[in-house]
């Protein structure tokens, strides 16, 4: 794999950083990341992963853009209202960097589709908004041997970590063995 001249120019500030360089930029181009959630966390996550040149980004979400999303889900604009979030986010990412590939999955992640999907990507990034999906993603990432970069927010607090049992680290169930009872889940 090689960078074309437009890409060399686009990524030149990266190429001159010793921590990235041509080898690193090619690694980014050859990598693939599956993002679950195209909302508040997914917006900046997808926009940055796209801009820096991650070669393939997968987006999973089944929601549509609502007026009340606009103040914080910054990839979506007023004219995107009513569109599937994955389409709106894909368009924003590709407008920023047309050199990459964005695959959209306008589906609810479930037991019968998750493993097939995870197989196609190197890294999983969880920005989902419920416990069922988070435990599903954790277990599927473990069985697929894929590192899981996990972020969650509540009101004014955020939690970020990487679950990577493959690398000797813990998984989500090591951190929290069970979800809160539905009656205690603050919404």
């Amino acid at each position: 794999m090689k960078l074309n001249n437009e890409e060399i120019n686009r990524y030149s500030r990266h190429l001159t950083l010793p921590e990235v360089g041509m080898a690193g930029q090619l690694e980014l181009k050859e990598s693939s990341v599956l993002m679950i959630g195209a909302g508040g966390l997914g917006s900046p996550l997808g926009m940055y992963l796209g801009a820096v040149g991650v070669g393939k980004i997968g987006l999973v979400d089944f929601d549509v853009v609502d007026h009340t999303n606009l103040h914080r889900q910054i990839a979506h604009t007023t004219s995107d209202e009513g569109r599937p979030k994955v389409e709106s986010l894909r368009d924003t990412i590709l407008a920023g960097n047309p050199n990459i590939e964005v695959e959209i999955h306008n589906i609810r992640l479930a037991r019968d589709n998750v493993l097939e999907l995870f197989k196609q990507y190197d890294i999983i990034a969880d920005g989902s908004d419920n416990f069922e999906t988070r435990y599903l993603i954790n277990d599927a990432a473990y069985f697929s041997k894929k590192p899981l970069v996990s972020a969650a927010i509540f009101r004014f607090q955020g939690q970020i970590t990487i679950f990577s049992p493959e690398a000797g680290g813990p998984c989500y169930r090591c951190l929290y063995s069970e979800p809160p009872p539905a009656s205690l889940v603050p919404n």
Partner: protein
Amino acid sequence: MGVVIEIPSALKQYVNDQDEVEVSGSSVEEAIGALVAEYTELKVNLFDENGKIRSFINVYLNDDDIRYADGLKSEVQDGDSIQIVPSVAGGCSTVKNS
């Protein structure tokens, strides 16, 4: 000077919206016991019926999980900090009401 317990935003409503509460005690159990004695509604949120910390709540003493020290019996000293960290699952901090 006592032990400072940091309260996560998910539980702040039970402690008059405070970010942290200072208590005294010589173990994590005593410190948290003093907290729930003052703010009784917290108890069912933190402990199960056997008096164990609920599995969706972690308690850290000076940044390490008490499960890997002596649990609730872990000793504390003045100046220590206890952090209560519940499991959260939000992706976009929506206030979705019922």
